[in-house]
């Protein structure tokens, strides 16, 4: 089993963190994983990309060749990095920011805002992707998230992961 996931967006959306968390969760669950990233020189804005490969065997080439899951959280991110989908690959975009025909548009930002802080949009997205991949129990992902967020924000982040999972479940039902 090998899953290739690419997350793109703009710098500051926390997509590198999202990739790291996903990778950490994967290795805790006993898989092999590689995470890479690239961004422009700007600290904020620009187009950033975070890639994770999760496999049941050691991974050779560490970059995504054909994405099984492509997540775009910004239009420029999608325009720049939204290529190379695998057959049967799934495209997920931020509903409020990205126009992409045929993609699943999900309200990550709005959901985060409803939870109280827009900044956890990436964690909501992680909850969604975790449910979509269905490679490990939800607690494994949540624990990985909690190990990587500031002290005092555990409750918010836990709810963000849950909200993401619920978004996926709702989408799967409709």
């Amino acid at each position, binding site marked *: 089993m090998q899953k290739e996931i690419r997350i793109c967006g703009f710098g500051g959306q926390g997509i590198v963190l999202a990739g790291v968390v996903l*990778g950490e969760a994967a*290795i805790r669950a006993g898989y092999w994983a590689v995470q890479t990233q690239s961004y422009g020189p700007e600290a904020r804005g620009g187009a950033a990309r975070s890639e994770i490969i999760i496999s049941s065997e050691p991974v050779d080439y*560490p970059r995504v060749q054909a994405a099984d899951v492509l997540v775009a959280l910004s239009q420029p991110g999608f325009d720049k990095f939204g290529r190379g989908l695998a057959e049967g690959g799934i495209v997920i975009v931020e509903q409020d920011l990205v126009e992409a025909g045929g993609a699943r548009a999900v309200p990550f930002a709005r959901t985060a805002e409803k939870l109280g802080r827009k900044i956890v949009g990436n964690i909501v997205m992680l909850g969604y992707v975790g449910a979509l991949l269905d490679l490990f129990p939800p607690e494994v992902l949540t624990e990985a998230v909690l190990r990587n967020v500031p002290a005092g924000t555990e409750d918010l982040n836990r709810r963000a992961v849950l909200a993401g999972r619920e978004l996926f479940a709702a989408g799967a039902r409709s």
Partner: protein
Amino acid sequence: MTAGFDYEKISGILGPREQFTQGDVACAYGALLGGCTFFAGYPITPATEIAEALSRLLPRVGGICTQMEDEIASISAVIGASWTGRRAMTATSGPGFSLMQENIGYACMSETPCVIIDVQRSGPSTGQPTEPAQGDMLQARWGTHGDHEIIALAPASVQECVDLTRKAFNLAEEYRTPVLVMTDGEVGHMREKIVLPAADEVEIRRRSGPSTPPGAFVPFQATRGKIPEMAGFGTGFHTYVTGLTHDERGLPATSSANAHTRLVRRLCEKIADATPALTDVEQDLQEGAEAGLISYGISARSAAGAVKRLRRDGLKISHLRLVTVFPFPEAVVQAFAAPLARIIVPELNLGQICHVVREAVDGAARIERVAKIGGEIITPLEIVRAVREGGEPVRAAS
């Protein structure tokens, strides 16, 4: 002199045995597990994370970590520290590596154990600071002036960042030489699972101290093969260390062609003769293959991906990965080339190790390259295409 190596203390500070971390951080872990207690460095993308990690970790194990005013000062301080008995290292990238060359030569000439990590980035000059490359490989071999040999290791994974950095310290101590760990911006910044070694997997091989007392001890006389014992500063041996041509007593002997020849040949043979012991490669041979890949570092990951695809499509291919790039494993490369008609060398440069391969293979097989620059690592597809349709030719010195 430092206290003994305390595995329990170090592994306690490094955290869980299994971690998901970056290559740069893994190098820092490897350094501690290799007995490093001195780091002097200067910030440079993409190696800065090594200095940052060590600035947090080293003081907690009684080590010294300092940021010097430039890369030349960094390698200078490392060499000075090594002479007090500490295992010392620095980390840099291309531009800093260029600056350090004079003193790397000094470390060769004075037989000072030390470790230098070069997290290679796209050059020449300032180039693309955040993009990976493999453009410093021949500089690793010949960057400093004069006749010398060097030991250079090429990690291809985050795990190897741990293990080869550890190994580098033992090699530096054993051969009394600088050892280079040539990573790159991709391996340095990507995250993978690492498993830290258990106590019984960690071996700290110390430099040999003098077996004769002060007065009788001859500091640059080889006693074990071509390697002299080493007396550290402050131990009463009054060792004179110089970059000038010196005799076995360590005293300048610049007007003696004989002394110079004796010294420099010994320094070179010290490492060249040990090529079989230092050779570390990974071979994946396929019976009947006419083409083979020779790779190292991050490009070996791309090559492995290509091998998988080619074989799945029914094409036979062999693969040789160099873990120790220098001293160059000529005998292994020649044996690898013997049954082959073509060898393709993928590198993130316009051709460096392919020349060394070509010289070693000496016409027994045609050498081609996959030369990629600009920051993106080589894709398996690009190597597959080269195998099927032919790679770029290799001409002398370009």
